[in-house]
């Protein structure tokens, strides 16, 4: 009886803490998201919205249409390829975080400068990256200095279907490492200094300390960052629009899954097809769920590791 009452009290307190979030998310996130998902099963276009016609239930028709569309298939495949940026980005961001977690002169300025790409407007950054990737651009020029390419056979990195997606992934990397660096920095602060000191006294090298102390204690942050980064990669859109004018070229080699949704909704609002966009969005979400589950699974807590 006493135990039960305590459990009830705990639940009440828990829900009191959760209340503001649940009310606001319920109204402004869950409700529209569920409505958007529902539209995936209906025939609903901008014309219906204008005429105040309700959505018409069509079951899985939109899903069949989307799955049968070669463009969507290409999009999903390219988005999956895009995931390769995730491990590279996370390892680099963690390494940079460890690097700037030192107390050295000017470190504050370095940390701030690494955050600059996060706040730089992508449209302006694109102008510079464009110049780098051009046929006579900085990248080919540097590769020639290093004798890595045959100058006559050089090409624009954004106009070759084998390199365009990789080039854009590099820009995502550039925009992302400072962002995750901040999260990792925050995570690093939660590692008790005493643990590190003890390890140093035991003669553990930096590499050992990193793997035996930093990584295990940072698991919550690692999960957070890898999950966010995975979802961002599978939903990549902005970079593609800026670098290809929304075409996903050359030869659809940079056409991503979300570009498909974008072209059916946001990007083309006055001709939007919310049913098809919703169905495509749900299919992408399914992939996202599977990948999220994988992230949770890979970073699952082994009990007793902490405290």
């Amino acid at each position, binding site marked *: 009886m006493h135990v039960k009452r305590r459990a009830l009290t*705990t*639940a009440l*307190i*828990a829900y009191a*803490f*959760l209340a503001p*979030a649940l009310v*606001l*998310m319920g*109204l*402004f*996130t*869950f*409700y*529209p*998201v569920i409505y*958007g998902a529902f539209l995936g099963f209906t025939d609903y276009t901008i014309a219906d919205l204008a005429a105040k016609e309700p959505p018409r239930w069509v079951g899985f028709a939109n899903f069949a249409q989307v799955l049968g569309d070669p463009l969507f298939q290409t999009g999903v495949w390219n988005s999956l390829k895009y995931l390769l940026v995730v491990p590279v980005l996370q390892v680099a961001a963690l390494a940079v975080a460890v*690097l700037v*977690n*030192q*107390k*050295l002169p000017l470190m*504050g*300025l*370095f*940390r*701030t*400068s*690494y955050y*600059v790409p*996060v*706040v*730089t*407007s992508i449209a*302006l950054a694109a*102008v510079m990256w464009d110049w780098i990737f051009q046929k006579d651009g*900085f990248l080919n020029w540097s590769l020639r200095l290093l004798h890595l390419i045959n100058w006559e056979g050089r090409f624009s990195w954004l106009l070759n279907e084998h390199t365009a997606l990789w080039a854009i992934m590099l820009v995502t990397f*550039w925009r992302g490492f400072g*962002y995750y660096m901040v*999260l990792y*920095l*925050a*995570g690093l*602060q*939660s590692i*008790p200094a005493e643990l590190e000191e003890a390890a140093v006294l035991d003669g553990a*090298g*930096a590499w050992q300390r990193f793997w035996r102390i930093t990584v295990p204690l*940072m698991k919550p*942050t690692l999960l*957070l960052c890898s*999950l966010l980064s995975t*979802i961002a990669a599978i939903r990549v859109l902005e970079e593609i629009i800026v670098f290809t004018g929304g075409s996903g070229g050359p030869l659809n080699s940079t056409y991503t899954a979300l570009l498909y949704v974008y072209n059916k*909704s946001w990007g083309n609002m006055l001709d939007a097809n919310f049913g098809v*966009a919703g169905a*495509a*969005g*749900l299919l*992408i979400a399914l992939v996202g769920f599977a990948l999220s589950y994988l992230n949770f699974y890979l970073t699952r807590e082994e009990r007793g590791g902490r*405290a």
Partner: protein
Amino acid sequence: MRQEVAGLSKAAGAGRLRRPRWRRLVARVLNYALLLAIFAFAVFPFLWTLAIAITDKTVVGGTSIYAFPQSLFPKALTLGNFLEVVEKLNLGKYFLNSVVITGLTVLGTLLVSALAAYPLARMSFPGRNLIFGAVVSTLVLPTEIAFIVNVLTLRDLGLLGTYLGVVLPTVATAFGIFLMRQAYLAIPSTLMEAARIDGATEAQILWRVMVPLSLPSLTALGIFTLVGTWNAYFWPSVALLTNDDLLPMSVAILKLKGQFNYDSFNVAAGAMIMMIPVLVVFLLAQRFFMRGTEGAVKG
């Protein structure tokens, strides 16, 4: 605690006392070389934008802003582009709107996330996993039509065209709750248990133990929210459809890209005006998420 160039060399970090002086120097030089290389990688578009923003366009001469690397070295400097943008767009009013909207959003997000994450991380109650799963799932679910649904809700609540209407729908986010939950999870549970034994209530534990210990994560969340809100233009433009007096600077600055008279110098100055306040806040705020290094042992 100092993290000496982790990953660079095993020997370099093997105890400061045993390390000869010259090796420490080499490590220091390598350190800075790496820091500078990443610095160049990170800031080059920023420097280009800055160079154009301070270029005196009246004496630009024969080079174009797209000519690299010449345009990185302006012939004559001026702050005229900044003044022109501020005056032309009447930015003062929009700047204040941005400050209010961003300030309210950051405060709201921190409050809501810090509260909601606590039970999700540290209390056991029925529905916990379901709620957490639902919250995280909104990160991947389609949101294409959310803006239409949300303006209708705002209208029904009578909040359309108010600061609150812009702010409220954006403060409770899966990202914020998830981030804070992970931060709380990293706090040793012994600290909580000790507080419980001392008779602290859950609210006291949250306020006196969890929040101070997760200050680095709270700061990170604050900065991310700040950047996101400061730069957002689409949602404010819809939520303030009926009241353009409250529009933030991010919407006003779009006006620089007209079809005629596309002035790249002004566009660059506008981009700087948007970026600099955020970077200043970052520069000042970072000591909060670096807090842990302060108490570290010296040498």
